[in-house]
């Protein structure tokens, strides 16, 4: 056991950090800066980070979920408004099915509550299903068939189904409801049917990546807030010198550190453990990170005071991103239920 990052992993993380430090969202006004967003998208495209889970010649992914998580964390920290999670999860589906890589920009469709992958019914996607990273994606993948043996199909996401940046809770990652008719087209060239282990492993990747995004969001929110606490003065002193403020920030830091440890393990587990164990690890991580991220982002708003409750302060942009990442493939309740199910003490109605 040695869970330190390798030199290559450190280099990847640093590269992602440099991109978001240069081209991420550093103020609310930056959300409307199309030129910056286009440069960020180009930088992410050029880096190959969206293709980390595409297949090599032997069918294995180019990089492990740890590398995916390292990139996701930095993108979350920098409030990156470029597609990543949807593209990564779509690539993973194609890889598992042995299908050729997507020709254009692709994402995935999840159920209306965002908790599960969407499923084809009667040749269509059920109304209310939601496409992730809907700003630029042209197609989105859904599952076809039962969990016992399933394949993948695609829905076309043509304008106006594609979304503007303010269409959802998260101002950095638009989602869009799939419009009728939502016709599902089979993906050509699938080499093998998928099974329940594929579903669990895919879910684990999604939970690990969203957990990593949450860790990054917490880091970003905490950096923003500690900087503010050092500069904002009341009673003739920086508010960061007051114990009441210090304890809020210390608790936020501790929640972020615990999240980082469990999220790192979940990312490792995706490729290293059997699917059921990877899902248990990812569920525990997601429950922990989702609870922590909401509290940390709420603390960010609280410490910013009145400013924190205005649209102009970035704190709510972090909170909004955390809310989407939390709900994506299940938040606290769904994952606590999975944790119990993994120990064979689950209940049918879950803990939602």
């Amino acid at each position: 056991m040695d869970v330190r990052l390798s030199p290559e992993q450190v280099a990847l993380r640093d590269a992602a950090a440099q991109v978001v430090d240069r081209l991420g969202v550093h103020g609310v006004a930056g959300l409307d800066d199309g030129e910056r967003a286009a440069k960020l998208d180009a930088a992410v495209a050029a880096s190959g980070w969206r293709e980390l889970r595409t297949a090599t010649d032997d069918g294995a992914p180019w990089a492990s979920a740890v590398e995916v998580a390292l990139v996701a964390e930095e993108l979350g920290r920098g409030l990156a408004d470029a597609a990543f999670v949807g593209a990564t999860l779509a690539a993973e589906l194609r890889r598992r099915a042995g299908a050729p890589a997507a020709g254009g920009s692709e994402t995935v469709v999840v159920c209306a509550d965002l908790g599960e992958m969407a499923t084809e019914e009667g040749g269509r996607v059920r109304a209310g299903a939601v496409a992730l990273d809907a700003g630029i994606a042209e197609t989105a993948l859904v599952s076809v068939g039962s969990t016992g043996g399933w394949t993948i199909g695609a829905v076309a996401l043509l304008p106006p189904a594609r979304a503007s940046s303010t269409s959802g809770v998260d101002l950095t990652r638009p989602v869009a409801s799939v419009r009728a008719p939502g016709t599902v087209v089979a993906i050509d060239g699938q080499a093998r049917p998928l099974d329940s282990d594929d579903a669990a492993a895919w879910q684990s990747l999604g939970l690990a990546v969203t957990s990593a995004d949450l860790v990054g969001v917490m880091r970003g929110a905490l950096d923003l807030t500690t900087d503010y606490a050092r500069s904002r003065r009341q009673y003739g002193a920086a508010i960061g010198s007051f114990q009441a403020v210090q304890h809020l920030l210390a608790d936020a830091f501790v929640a972020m550190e615990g999240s980082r440890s469990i999220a790192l393990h979940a990312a490792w587990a995706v490729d290293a453990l059997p699917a059921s164990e990877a899902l248990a690890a990812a569920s525990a991580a997601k429950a922990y990170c989702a609870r922590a991220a909401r509290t940390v982002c709420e603390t960010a708003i609280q410490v910013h005071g009145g400013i924190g409750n205005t649209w102009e302060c970035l704190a709510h942009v972090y909170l909004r991103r955390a809310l989407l990442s939390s709900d994506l493939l299940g938040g606290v309740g769904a994952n606590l239920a999975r944790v119990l199910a993994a120990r064979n003490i689950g209940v049918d109605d879950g803990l939602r």
Partner: protein
Amino acid sequence: MDFADSPEELEFRRRLRAWLSQNNPGLPASSTADEYWAGQAVWHQALYDAGFFGLSWPTEVGGHGLPSVYEVILDEELITAGAPPRPSVGYLVQGLLRHGNADVRGRFLPGLVSGRERWCQGFSEPDAGSDLASLRTQAVRDGEEYVVTGHKVWTSYSDAADWCLVLARTDPEVPTHKGISAFVVPMGQAAIEQRPLQMINGVTREFGEVLFDGARVDAANMVGEPGEGWRLAMTVVSHEREPGELGYVARYGKLVNELVHVVEEEPSRFGPEPRRDLAWALVETEMLRCHVSRRLSERLEGLTHGPEGSVDKLLMTAAEQAVGHAALTVGGAVHVDGDDTWLKVYLYSRAQSVMGGTSQIQRNLIAGRILELPTS
């Protein structure tokens, strides 16, 4: 980045698992009865004699000189076997290793590591709790000895101890934290009086007061130089805050597995609330295991004594108290039976946010030394 065993680690894990399958003494994971500490003493010696204790400590003091991450393997296998956690003496070992001279290390560490000699820690006083530097116990030089006079409190297991690591003021003329020295004081002197304190869970043989009324200690039993006591105390408490040093991952893992078993026995008894508490206890315990793996991996680059222990202490406390809450709701029937073991586990968990430095103090340390927020 790899949580998996190397071939050597896997071989060690198999050997340990085989031994544990034959040698699990079936002791509780927490102090819920007065017999706990006596049982832990026997367990400590058995674990040591079998070659499974002090894994990452130097061989010259009875350790095995293995990489730090072997401690995680030990914790994981103790959980799998349902065995008691490893004895929590690591913070004393680290304090003596760092501050003791060759003579002190050679005379005291082998007995501490092997469990043949038992130790307690005389730091806190009635008027020196969080403000430890204000302690008033005095040690006055008398020839080749020091004479110790003062009042210590919250001293765990002092009645069973052979030695007490005492902080005492040797120079009242200098600023408070510069005039403190540390001594290894032999217990069992007539000049040392013990007064047990009953804890909120009813246990009477853990907590206590120790009164030193002219107790004598060899000057050669001073740990470090005169005036080095404060720095030794900071080393000791920084490691006392580390679950990787204490072995508490195994303690919580054992408790939470026992709670899972309670639900398995009769699932229909448990509604959403206890199940949710149990799920959080499982998640928090898993988080702590992952966090300790991360910290002990960082330690492969060398041991540090920094403020990260305060982060770890708060994470460890959250885990213990989540397990405590699950013990309360899953354990059940606690309002009728005041002697219920799960009630005692819950009540004992409240001490974790106080012992080794309160949670409030940890937050102060994190704010100042990690977040570098301004002082008021």
